[in-house]
């Protein structure tokens, strides 16, 4: 059962070869673009690595970079093959090369599609990683004297100012954490002692936020401390005050930023995938139509080209069988070895 049979007169073969050469050139550029997009995404993720708990999300840019490099190789060979295709003398030397070539190319093309799907599907993993990372960042904000954590304050401050956000879910996260270090608290003061005693864990909690939560667009000077106490500040109502500090949480801000980035990259890589797929399909048609010409005296006859000689399932089995045999063989060798021992 042949898949997608098409007739190819000589002129059509020539046009196919020329068109394929142009396509493979643009696909090479697209492959380089994919690689650079992967690098950009990886750099952006590494920039905020301190507020991410795990690096699972890095599989997306890593895959993009691998696929980009692979497509450079694939398209280089595609252009070489189509240049030789019209020369009936040169074409046969590619005969043995083409079967593994198509297998590897299809694998990497499918991998490209997987990368796009992953970039949309890994939102949940990214969000969880940010949730844990930000929670730790806020907890260790005060530990500027502890090695390994001394830059958390600086990082969180930069993050909140750059992304115009405050806290993890929102600014109330700062009320639950002691973000003022004991080094700067006067333990002789009555106010400090009262506050620490009123807390179960002996922490100094305030209804205040760091300065990096302040919104520059506010018409009044920033109110950082006693945020929930309306009487502490003149003409202030904490329920209706929207411009004083950033109301958005940093997790939401970062997730939106990275999702926007990955959506743009995903769309671009999807079009690269379609381009790469068309290169492979055209090359397959060219190969099969040229193979029918081999051995004929008149090279300008009309031939048939097809995608797959047998059906899809049979072709897949054809590729998988040697792989399975190889794995089973190694298995048998191990078993035999175990028995002998």
């Amino acid at each position, binding site marked *: 059962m042949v898949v997608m049979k098409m007739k190819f007169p000589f002129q059509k073969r020539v046009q196919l070869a020329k068109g394929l050469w142009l396509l493979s050139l643009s696909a090479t550029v697209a492959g380089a673009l994919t690689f650079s997009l992967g690098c950009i995404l990886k750099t952006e993720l590494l920039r905020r690595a301190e507020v991410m708990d795990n690096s699972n999300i890095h599989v997306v840019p890593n895959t993009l970079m691998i696929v980009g490099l692979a497509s450079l190789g694939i398209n280089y060979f595609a252009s070489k093959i189509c240049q030789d295709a019209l020369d009936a003398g040169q074409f046969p030397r590619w005969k043995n090369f083409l079967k593994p070539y198509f297998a590897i190319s299809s694998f990497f093309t499918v991998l490209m599609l997987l990368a796009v799907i992953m970039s949309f599907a890994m939102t949940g993993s990214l969000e969880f990683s940010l949730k844990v990372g930000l929670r730790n960042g806020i907890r260790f904000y005060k530990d500027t004297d502890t090695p390994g954590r001394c830059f958390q304050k600086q990082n969180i401050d930069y993050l909140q100012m750059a992304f115009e956000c405050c806290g993890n879910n929102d600014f109330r996260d700062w009320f639950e954490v002691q973000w003022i270090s004991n080094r700067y608290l006067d333990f002789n003061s009555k106010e400090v002692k009262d506050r620490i005693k009123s807390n179960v864990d002996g922490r100094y909690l305030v209804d205040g936020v760091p300065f990096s939560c302040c919104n520059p667009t506010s*018409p009044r000077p920033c109110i950082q401390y006693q945020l929930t106490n309306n009487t502490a500040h*003149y003409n202030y109502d904490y329920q209706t005050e929207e411009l004083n500090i950033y109301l958005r949480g940093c997790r939401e801000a970062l997730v939106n930023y990275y999702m926007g980035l990955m959506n743009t990259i995903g769309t671009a890589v999807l079009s690269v995938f379609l381009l790469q797929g068309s290169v492979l399909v055209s090359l397959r048609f060219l190969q099969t139509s040229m193979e029918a010409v081999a051995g004929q005296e008149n090279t300008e006859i009309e031939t048939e080209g097809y995608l797959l000689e047998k059906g899809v399932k049979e072709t897949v089995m054809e590729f998988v069988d040697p792989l399975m045999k190889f794995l089973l063989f190694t298995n048998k060798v191990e078993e035999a070895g175990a028995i002998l021992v």
Partner: protein
Amino acid sequence: MAVGKLTFTKAEREKLAEVLWLLNWISVLTGAILISLGVFLKVEIQKWQEVMSDQGILYVPNTLITTGLAACCINFLGGKICLDCADTNKFLRWKLVMMPYVICTFFFTSCVLAGALMCYSIRSQLEESIFLGLRNTMRFYKDTDTPGRCYLKKTLDLLQIQFECCGNTGYRDWFHVQWISNRYLDMTSSIVVDRLRSNVEGRYLMDGVPFSCCSTLSPRPCIQQQISNSSAHFNYNQQSQQLNLWRRGCRQALMDHYTGIMQSIGLTVLLIWLFELLVLTGVRYLQTAMENVIRLGDPDSESDGWILENSLAETARSNFNIIKNLGKCYQIDDDPNINVPTASAEQEVPSRGVHIPVTS
């Protein structure tokens, strides 16, 4: 005595024309670079225009943009001319245009040099403008309800955050302005009333700074109020004070930023000027060589090319005379057909007595 005289064979003339054609196209590209540098500088200045008092600084990027446009046009024309110059017949088409073209290119090249020098000379004007602009912005920081000034607070906060600076010369500038609006001061409170009364002009001054002055490098939470009072804060030692706020003044920060940009732009424009000068010299040689070939009559012969036909002094004198004579266009001196009364004609011609012989 010609200045810079060189002899050109036919092959050399053709080679020169080809090279100049290529150089002219490269000059079109450098013209585009000039335009983009001008646009970049304009955008950078307009970003922080609200903290500058003098809008006249924009003449520098505007000059660069206009010069870049002129470069593109002139060098595009130059490319066409040089392509035709290789052949004597085609050169005759351009013969009359060549001299004005060379003069125009000379003036335009000086404009490029002027543009480059402007980038370096504008420094003091810029500093003055930033100083006055920042002073006004700090004064109007609290006026977020006054139309025309409502975004100055946001601009200054963003400036201080981005450039990591505080105040005009330093953070103490904030102690001399009232940056908290009366709308947010409780006039019934005794503290507020005392403070207002203690100031001559009735302004609410305090030793505090806005939040945007806070340094992110400080190990402790930011201290914004009562900065000069060490006893108001626990463990507020010298080191805490140093790291607490940004130490640099915003005037210095902006000057550093713009000086860096303008020095790089100035250097690039100087290099472009040198390149244009090279192209101009080449075109002048080609023009004079082609004119001499036509004068000699034989298109295949060698000809001389020069920068100036006579020495610099003589050329200057002859040009000066031309300019002087331009003003005399209504006085006709040399036409021999007109009877100009001279001093000798005023002498009376003595009338000779005519004796008429009387015959009877």
